[in-house]
């Protein structure tokens, strides 16, 4: 069944989360002096994972390929940068709602315009809106232009004068990002398995039929667009917080292209895939840069190969390990289990009662 995955997915994801979560314990022992840097890198990967996940809702679930998603990432970063006071930290209690509000409004307006278009036109119009904001930020007097802006203080998390979280502490910030990725994942998992998610699946499969059935598909798509945009803006806000810096390059189309690459590497439409994709992409780039000054060739070839031979990404490998998949297609299995027309690993599993989608 759609959005139900074999148990090993849960196991692998839990193990990986645990490994990352206890990194502060084993990192220094393994990496020594480098461990601080690696934790910072992990934090960044978590932020990108959140970003990639938000795009997956749009691309993988609804089937809307956006080439302008960095718009919302950048919007989150710039909202934080421009709304932060110069000489004191902003309170997170109003900063987060503000970022969400700004991005939701932007997503509503942009979404209203782009949702009407389909296929290639959707790709192109999202690209155009991304570029529009990019050039606006680039040339506007209030945004620091091409040089970008500093955010001198990370927002404070205080309640009645008591500091709840010290975001300047790298460890705290790391766990905040980790927690947000987990929350984001659970939220999207819930969303895709809810009836609303089922409608989105329907739209992905056959939007025309959904219209004929009686659904106002554009409303559903718009809501998904807004949710996705808000999540991306939170990721952008975190990214800007991490280094205290926002720059127009964060919202150009190259940034949008990169996050798409994370999706394809990880496996889209699975929500957990893009998390893996973000990590894989960053690790690959880090490695290639160390390997050769001509790293873009390696990166480019990796993407091309992934598209050609691994279209379902890492997630696809986990859900259907190559050997299993081959076995499943083999006549032997069909012979053993008559009546199963397409014995993929999902279909082989005995169907659960009613539509409860455990997994």
């Amino acid at each position, binding site marked *: 069944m759609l959005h139900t995955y074999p148990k090993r997915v849960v196991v692998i994801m839990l193990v990986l989360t645990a490994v990352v979560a206890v990194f502060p314990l084993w990192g220094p022992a393994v990496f020594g002096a480098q461990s601080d840097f690696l934790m910072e890198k992990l934090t960044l990967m978590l932020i990108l994972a959140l970003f990639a996940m938000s795009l997956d809702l749009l691309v993988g679930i609804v089937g809307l*390929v956006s080439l302008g998603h960095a718009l919302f990432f950048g919007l989150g970063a710039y909202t934080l940068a421009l709304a932060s006071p110069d000489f004191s930290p902003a309170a997170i209690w109003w900063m987060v709602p503000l970022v969400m509000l700004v991005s939701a409004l932007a997503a509503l307006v942009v979404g209203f315009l782009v949702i009407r278009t389909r296929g290639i036109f959707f790709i192109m*119009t999202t690209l155009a809106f991304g570029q529009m904001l990019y050039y606006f930020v680039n040339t506007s007097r209030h945004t620091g232009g091409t040089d970008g802006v500093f955010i001198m203080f990370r927002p404070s998390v205080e309640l009645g004068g008591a500091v709840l979280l010290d975001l300047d502490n790298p460890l705290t910030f790391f766990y905040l990002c980790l927690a947000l990725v987990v929350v984001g994942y659970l939220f999207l998992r819930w969303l895709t398995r809810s009836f609303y998610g089922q409608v989105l699946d329907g739209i992905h499969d056959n939007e025309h039929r959904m219209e004929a059935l009686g659904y106002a598909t554009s409303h559903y798509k718009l809501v998904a667009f807004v949710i996705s945009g808000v999540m991306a803006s939170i990721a952008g806000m975190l990214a800007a917080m991490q280094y205290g810096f926002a720059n127009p390059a964060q919202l150009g189309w190259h940034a949008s292209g990169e996050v798409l690459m994370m999706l394809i590497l990880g496996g889209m439409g699975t929500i957990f895939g893009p998390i893996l994709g973000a990590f894989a992409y960053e690790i690959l780039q880090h490695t290639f840069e160390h390997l050769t000054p001509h790293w873009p060739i390696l990166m480019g070839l990796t993407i091309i190969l992934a598209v050609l031979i691994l*279209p379902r990404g890492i997630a696809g490998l986990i859900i259907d390990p190559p050997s299993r998949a081959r076995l499943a297609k083999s006549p032997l299995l069909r012979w053993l289990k008559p009546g199963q027309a397409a014995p993929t690993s999902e279909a082989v599993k005995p169907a659960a009662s009613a539509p409860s989608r455990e997994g």
Partner: protein
Amino acid sequence: MDLAFFGVQLLNGLQYGLLLFLIASGLTLIFGIMGIINLAHGAMYMIGAYLVYDLTFRLGNFWLAILVAIPVAVALGLLIERLFLDTLYKRDHLYQVLLTFGLILVLNEMQRIIWGGDVHSVPVPELFSGRIRLTDNLQYSHYRLFVMGVCLALAGVIYWVIRHTRLGIIIRAGAVNRDMVEGLGINVRTLFTLIFSVGVALTAFAGMIAAPLTSIAPGMGDSILITCFVVVVIGGIGSIKGAFWGAILIGMAETFGAVLIPSLASMVIYLIMAAVLLVKPRGLFA
């Protein structure tokens, strides 16, 4: 704005628009017939310029360089289509976007390995090195006029092919409904290879004849790419006529926008695109 100034800007807008048309025509062909979004289109433009730069100095003649460079560009198109795109036609646009994004990285880096990071230029060919006088202190290079002529002529040829040949019928049919092409009993695979090679060659050719007018530098294709996308989307994907008028519109908008509303100059083409799509979500000529 006095009349002479207006006239000069009209000429500039027209010339820029025509060149844009040449670059965008390949893109719209590939879009329309094959349904492929070719992000590496800008890289093809760059490769055309670098090829002609390289060959001009090797062969000592600009025209000869173009003659040699065109088959190279066609071969490149052929290679990419057969190696990479062939398996992607049945898949979602996303995969094409990503694959051609990967191609950008590879091609840009290949350019750097072969030709390095320096800025280069190609001298204007002797035949058109003269200038005409537009106003008392402003002149216009013969070569720019020549480029306009070439673009117009090519636009004419493309128009003729589309209107009056069997290939044109197929192309028009394909732009409306791709399944129909298969229904016409065409070998789609051959057609796609042909279209992609022609598209790449057109773009690379634009880079070649534009070479003496511009500077040849790494990344030169990236900025032109997005402008071309805007042209194609405004005109209507797959429509050559749309690409032509879209290009002229954008050429004029950039030229006059730069002078009349400088504060919005960098955004003007996107604003136009958004406005067009609001009124006609499939472009002006779709």
